[in-house]
């Protein structure tokens, strides 16, 4: 059969389009390779999750495994996870041998945040820039206008009026806003990871605790306009309605 000439005629409309997407997935950190008892542990966690893990794509994090741990029994692990309703989609962390074993189970090898070029998203940890109000202005009852910056050094900040978009409020400790928060709020700016942000009406442009931040676009629509607290869990910024 003669080779088909390269067709110059365009084919029918494309069926797929490739684009990058961002997803937040639950990560299951594996702490050992002896999987005895993993079944019960998984069962307990899934029960506590109340349906959250049902058909949930889960990433297996291997970075907490001790150096000298043996092979990870992936077939058993994946089987157990699937048995409890999870959908293991990939692994992150771990060594190349483990990656090969994972790939054999058709698990993707995802980027390890500690080794990849992009650092965890933190605001540069420099000294907070000169603020217009500093010192014991811990309780403010007037609106914080666009362009104003308030820094509660060494303590918490309580604001009883609206924080306009374009305004910035910072504190070494916690931040409470009992009015619409439309600007940026940064708590624990000197590195206190226990600091929290509490607000009555979340419409913030950016929230940050100890440098870990999230911008407005990545704040779920279910949280917008609600009373929310923002805190750090390990290295994850969590947001919950109050």
């Amino acid at each position, binding site marked *: 059969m003669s080779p088909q000439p390269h067709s110059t005629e365009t084919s029918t409309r494309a069926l797929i389009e490739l684009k990058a997407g961002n997803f937040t997935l639950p990560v299951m950190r594996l702490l050992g390779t002896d999987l005895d008892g993993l079944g019960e542990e998984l069962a307990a966690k899934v029960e506590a999750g109340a349906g959250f893990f049902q058909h949930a794509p889960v990433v297996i994090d291997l970075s907490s495994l001790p150096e000298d741990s043996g092979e990870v029994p992936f077939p058993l692990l994946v089987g157990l996870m699937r048995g409890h309703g999870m959908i293991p989609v990939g692994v992150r962390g771990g060594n190349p041998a483990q990656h090969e074993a994972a790939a054999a189970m058709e698990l993707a090898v995802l980027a390890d945040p500690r080794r990849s070029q992009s650092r965890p998203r933190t605001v540069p940890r420099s000294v907070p820039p000169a603020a217009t109000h500093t010192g014991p202005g811990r309780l403010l009852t007037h609106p*914080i206008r*666009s*362009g104003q910056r308030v820094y509660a050094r060494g303590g918490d900040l309580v604001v009883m*009026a*609206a924080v306009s*978009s*374009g*305004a910035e409020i910072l504190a070494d400790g916690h931040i409470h806003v009992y009015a619409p928060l439309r600007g940026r709020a940064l708590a624990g700016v000197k590195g206190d990871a226990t600091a929290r942000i509490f607000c009555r009406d979340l419409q913030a442009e950016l929230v940050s605790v100890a440098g870990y931040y999230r911008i407005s676009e990545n704040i779920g629509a279910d949280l917008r306009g609600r009373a929310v607290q923002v805190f750090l869990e390990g290295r994850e910024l969590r947001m919950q309605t109050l």
Partner: protein
Amino acid sequence: MARIIVVTSGKGGVGKTTTSASIAMGLARRGHRTAVIDFDVGLRNLDLVMGCERRVVYDFVNVINQEANLNQALIRDKREDNLFILPASQTRDKEALTKEGVGRVLDELAQSFDYVVCDSPAGIEHGATMAMYYADDAIVVTNPEVSSVRDSDRMLGILASKSRRAERGDEPIREYLLLSRYSPERVARGEMLSVDDVKDILALDLLGVIPESQSVLSASNAGVPVILDEASDAGRAYADLVGRYLGEDLPHRFLEAQKKGLLSRLFGG
């Protein structure tokens, strides 16, 4: 001692000069000796809107630099004896405005006038900060549109922190909100921020709402402050505004979409 009023906004083109002209005329009409000063050095407009552009000999910068005295520079309005205009310089730049110089001129005006209206330039730079530094009252002109609201919010922050009253810890500048170019029809269609939306974001009391009106352009081109056009909605809204500023309790008009009757639709508004 005069009350110094700054008409400011942050955002450009929202109606500061239109407002300054009408408020100054309105106050003067009610018997108060009023001076209105153009702080927009280099881009002066107030003289055009007031209709006195052909009578400018000396200007604000001349007075600051003591090249002329106030009496030589102030232009008396032809329509209203109580009203005087101090035009800006068109040839100098705003560095010519110094804090001390501006303070001296305002002090001198305060001796013989009841109200001094300062028409601020747009922005938050030197000209605008000079216009608001000595103010007792501030009328923040805002369009019902997001960038104007944010810029007004920024300006409110500056008024609260960079004025002389703020620096001295005196009673702060009294802030008033003026919502201009308001179209109730567009608000009803959801295209434009409503009065409540703006009040919610800026947390300010409303001094007045000026409806979008073709009469503003006509008045401006004719060199007549629009408050003198008593047939126009904008003119009447400005008259209400002056009344409210002076303490009268007047309801806000022009907030509802006008329902045109058959006859006015046939024969025009």
